[in-house]
């Protein structure tokens, strides 16, 4: 080879050329743009179309936001300030901020109470969400929180939520004592003890002891109502959902069919019909003279609704576990309750987390439906008192956009958290 070249090639370089930078079109931003945006002709057309859409959106929305008026007493005043220019009238948000958050009937001097309940929610929920970062002792506060939050939002005597909490403690103590004999004994014994305690204390009258001003349920509203309904119903529906899912998987035909009928019925009807039930029908089925307030009835119905969906998610998790896990639990000699508590449920729930979060996000969005049965949640406030007022009649986009933004931030945050958690829990060795 070298002989041939020695005659045909006049000159051969004997040193390496220094490394050259790649051509401009093959490096950096230009290369990225070429390969990601203009690789083929259809791709280029798509890019241009997308750019056009973006431009249309931005050119429409940007001046509206940038020229926005934040300080005006009414829409007509807003329009005077704008003087024909494009711009949003965000003053409605500033002026009606408290109404949007707390509803229009919550006593304004008590706003600190739901506000502190809201802030404490983060303290309570942090050790659950980020269980590796926060000390386990904080879970004690999480356990206390529901009762504290009830007291803060609704007011009344402190003893009422304390007794409710004590019922749980007594139930647990009885359970811990009896569970050594059999799980079923402990479980039902605990429930019975708690019920008896509540029945006794329910007859007592705590009026005047450690009182905070009482706020009626019908005075709750705004985004606070959405948050209350969302958190309460999701947290209540998880235990019910687990029970329903286990019931549906059960070998006992009667229990299985009760669960199947319940789940399929609830999943087959829209939430609105269940809210109608809460609004107009449920009262017929309660003891004559009893006076459940609307929010409690709504919580009952939404919890039933959410439990059915969560049950299906958890059933999926149970079904996804390899059969070997069930058999391993049996071969260790564990009984049903032990096998479920120690082996099956921890794994099944882990698999179900994304599904449960999906249901939770969906449910939180669905809490806006209560505006249809004339409760004044965020959407109800906007459509009702605010848009109907003479000052703000016609401020659609600012208000609806604000509501959409609030829900977007919350729901997107939750779904991002769930993805993060999934990565954390992914303990499989791959």
């Amino acid at each position: 080879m070298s002989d041939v070249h020695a005659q045909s090639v006049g000159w051969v370089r004997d040193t390496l050329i220094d490394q050259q930078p790649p051509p401009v079109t093959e490096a950096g931003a230009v290369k990225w743009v070429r390969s990601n945006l203009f690789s083929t002709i259809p791709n280029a057309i798509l890019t241009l179309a997308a750019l056009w859409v973006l431009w249309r959106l931005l050119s429409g929305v940007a001046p509206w936001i940038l020229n926005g008026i934040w300080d005006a007493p009414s829409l007509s005043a807003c329009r005077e300030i704008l003087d024909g220019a494009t711009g949003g009238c965000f003053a409605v948000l500033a002026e009606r901020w408290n109404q949007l958050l707390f509803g229009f009937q919550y006593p304004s001097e008590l706003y600190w109470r739901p506000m502190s309940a809201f802030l404490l929610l983060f303290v309570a929920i942090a050790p659950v969400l980020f269980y590796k970062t926060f000390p386990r002792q904080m879970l004690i506060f999480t356990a206390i929180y529901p009762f504290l939050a009830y007291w803060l939002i609704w007011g009344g005597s402190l003893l009422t939520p304390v007794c409710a909490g004590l019922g749980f403690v007594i139930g647990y103590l009885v359970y811990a004592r009896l569970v050594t004999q059999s799980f079923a004994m402990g479980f039902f014994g605990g429930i019975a003890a708690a019920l008896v305690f509540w029945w006794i204390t329910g007859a007592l009258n705590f009026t005047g002891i450690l009182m905070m001003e009482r706020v009626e349920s019908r005075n709750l509203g705004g985004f606070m109502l959405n948050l209350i309904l969302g958190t309460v119903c999701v947290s209540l529906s998880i235990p019910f959902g687990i029970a329903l899912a286990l019931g549906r998987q059960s070998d006992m035909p009667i229990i299985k069919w009760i669960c199947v009928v319940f789940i399929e019925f609830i999943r087959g009807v829209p939430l609105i019909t269940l809210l109608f039930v809460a609004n107009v029908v449920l009262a017929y089925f309660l003891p004559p003279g009893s006076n459940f307030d609307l929010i409690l009835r709504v919580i009952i119905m939404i919890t039933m609704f959410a439990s059915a969906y969560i049950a299906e998610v958890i059933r999926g998790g149970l079904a996804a576990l390899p059969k070997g896990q069930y058999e391993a639990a049996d071969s260790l000699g564990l009984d049903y309750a032990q096998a479920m508590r120690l082996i099956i449920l921890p794994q099944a729930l882990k698999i179900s987390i994304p599904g449960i979060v999906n249901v939770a996000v969906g449910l939180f969005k669905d809490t806006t439906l209560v505006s249809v049965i004339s409760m004044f949640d965020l959407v109800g406030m906007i459509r009702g008192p605010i848009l109907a007022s003479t000052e703000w009649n016609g401020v659609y986009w600012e208000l609806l956009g604000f509501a959409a933004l609030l829900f977007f931030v919350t729901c997107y945050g939750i779904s991002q958290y769930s993805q993060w958690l999934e990565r954390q829990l992914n303990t499989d060795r791959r």
Partner: protein
Amino acid sequence: MTTLSDPQGESFRLSMLLNDTRYRSYTFQFIALVCVAALFAYLGSNLMANLRAAGLSISYDFLGDPSGYDINQTMIAYTSQSSHLRASIVGLLNTLLVSILACITATIIGVVAGVLRLSNNWLVSKLMAGYVEMFRNVPVLIWIIIIFTIMTAVAPSPSAFRGDDPDASMVFGMIAFTNRGVYVPAPVFEPLGWVVLGVFLASIVASILYRRHARKKLFDEGVLLPTTWPTLAIVFVPAILVFFVLGRPITLDIPELGGFNFSGGVTLLGSLIALWFALAIYTGAFIAENVRAGILSVSRGQTEAAAALGLRPRRIMNLVVLPQALRVIVPPLISHYLNITKNSSLAIAVGYMDLTGTLGGITLNQTGRAIETILLLMLFYLAISLTISGLMNVYNNAVRLKER
């Protein structure tokens, strides 16, 4: 083994009902049954007591009474003298109409968005991700209200179309967007027009037969017949020919401004459009995620194996990727259809007269028969849901992976 099993011949003791695995399940089921029966008895007795106190009774007689209210969109003949039952059926048809429209639109939007989200075009895939996140994370009720507001508060009133230099004009000279609804042209069939429609339907059948024939030919004899162009030709050419030969027997009834409003054509109410599009884009975002997940679920090895066999990209998509992806896409897709049907009950928020608006709205308010109407309302929805999920099971069984 014998030593491990429960001791035989032992006399029965009461505690065995709770502790012996042979009897325990009967005990539990009995307790559950008693609890449920007690619950129903308790609710039932409360119901009876409450009804007696209010002087009411459970009766469905009101269904035969004249309803006394008008419905702004009816697909079957209906007047305010018709019965409540007929009003409910009008509502049911309206529910089905908006659900079907929204299902079709949502599928189209979802498939397009899902595929575009997988595109190598960075900008387009980010834009689609933005669409999906934006619509998934905001309640559908808010979207319905937003679109309804566009339809009613932003669209011009019919009087804006009047005059020589109107503020608003009709799209393509045919479609008028007004705050009273959207007026679109309606096809008018002369007697011969039905012939054209018949020919069109027949040619669709013929094209299916042709494709089947081409497939059989390919499998039996290995001859590859072209399908795309012949199919298009078979479907459209005869119908168009017949249409012109018979002298254009199908015409369009274009809406015209007369008096204070448009007349002629078909009116799509603002509430219908709001509900339809809000449900479609909201659910479309969910379907887009499904489609994306479905396509991603087909492992790369499948695509590569097909490429190694020498298939072209389109055939890889049609013959290898899509059939496997559909198995993942379709079950959640159908549950989204169920969601659309159930969410269509939000019509009541914008005044579209669907089942919830007629039976659960005005009929309930006029007759005051809460228990009866809401039970009936739930049963209607339950029937729709069970039908759809029944169809889903049939389909699932048909496409299920045949395991050995």
